[in-house]
């Protein structure tokens, strides 16, 4: 098989965002299998729900009906691994930024991640997926929309449950529509 043909049968999708937002869970929902993870115990901030964190990357894959392989990467949230992001983002079809509604600075995080991604590739399709809104009835979407509008980017912002396969798929559907 020629290299170009092989490339056409591979697709790369990247999930990124801060620690504890649900990237690994979303990857599991998207590929129907647990990702290969490099997880370590959280040195601080561990909770009953979250005692480990991804320190290098998550990876999983799934094969489409026509044989195309979809590679799904989860890029770590810690700043010290920021050097890896442009490497993994290269040739990606798009990026889903997963944020937690429980983060008091979720809008600031949204702006930070959008700038990080678009600075490297201004044409990269991006969607924002916000988790844990079920635990915060007073969640406010407006500041996040304001951040997206200020950046002038075509970025869908969805709340979703990373454990729900259909909702994780829906986030990717939005990404495909802007790609």
């Amino acid at each position, binding site marked *: 098989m020629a290299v170009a043909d092989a490339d056409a049968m591979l697709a790369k999708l990247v999930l990124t965002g801060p620690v504890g937002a649900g990237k690994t869970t979303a990857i599991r929902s998207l590929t129907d299998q647990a990702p290969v993870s490099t997880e370590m115990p959280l040195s601080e901030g561990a909770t009953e729900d979250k005692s480990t964190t991804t320190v290098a990357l998550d990876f999983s894959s799934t094969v489409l009906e026509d044989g195309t392989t979809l590679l799904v990467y989860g890029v770590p949230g810690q700043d010290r691994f920021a050097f890896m992001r442009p490497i993994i983002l290269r040739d990606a079809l798009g990026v889903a930024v997963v944020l937690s509604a429980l983060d008091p600075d979720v809008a600031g995080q949204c702006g930070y991640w959008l700038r990080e991604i678009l600075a490297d590739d201004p044409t990269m399709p991006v969607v924002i997926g916000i988790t844990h809104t079920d635990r915060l009835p007073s969640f406010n979407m407006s500041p996040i929309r304001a951040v997206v509008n200020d950046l002038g980017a075509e970025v869908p912002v*969805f709340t979703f449950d990373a454990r729900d396969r259909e909702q994780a798929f829906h986030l*990717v559907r939005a990404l495909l529509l802007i*790609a």
Partner: protein
Amino acid sequence: MKNLDIRLAALDETLVQRVRMAANALVTHRMHARVAAWDGTRCDLVVVAAEDLYGERVRQIAAGRGTPVLTLGGDGESVLPHHIPRRLANIATIVRILHDLAVEVVPVAAQPGRARETPKDSEGSCALVRLASQPDLARADIEASIDGLTVWLMPGLGRVLGADAASLREAAARLGSGGWTFRRLSPGEPLPAAAVASQSLEVFYLKGAWAARDELPHYPPGACRLAAWPDLGTAADIVEALQVVKALRRVGGDVRSIAEDAGIPMRETAACLWAFSAAGLVERAPDVPWPQPARTRGREKEGLLKRLARHFGLDRGPLRIAHT
């Protein structure tokens, strides 16, 4: 030729088709009938479903205005003056009763000062249409109640709040009906302690509009577009809405052109537009060319995108991933 404005409420798909065919057949009686979903405004004839709460509500409103009502469906006899049980509701019978009712009608459009009304902020009007037709209402934080059920519409947060998930579902299912009471919340008014569950306001409206799409009125003419992407993350069962959003963001236009661009039927497209309008996200400016969102990727990945779209269930309707 007598022009008639006929509205339908709560009928199932089979009966809607029969009424439409019967209405077309009225032309043999020199009557031209326009058939649309009930929207709470005045019309010449109303056809409602029997044994349906919404249908009964509409029947009462119409009867109160003196508008002739034909009731269809149900199994048994009723005391209603013009009722055709389902087993007898063939097209010929519907034509006959419609004709009998219509001969006495002075069409609304022919009455001085009675051109077709636009939806008003009355409790009899569909809640979605009330919100969508009044931008200042759509932008306000509102306590909305119907039959003891209360939800809080919070466009400032982009959320709707309720006592629990079940009450939010029930409220969404009733958004297509009248009878809602709206109370604007005062600035700074604290949320009630009962408001412990929330969800995306856009999903709430979309679910309601989708459930009531057979009954919603035609979406008003004129070009429109979306100011922002609605939060549709938890409406994964309504994939069509994403295609409508894409068309609204990409090209804008009236409901017909949006439907064509999205590859989605007019009725479903209109339902999405009513929902997004109620959420205050639709901009209307017919003479202004819309700025096009930047195209992000080239054509070289089109085939791959189509395959991924199929995998992720984006082609339940016509596949609309291709670039233009």
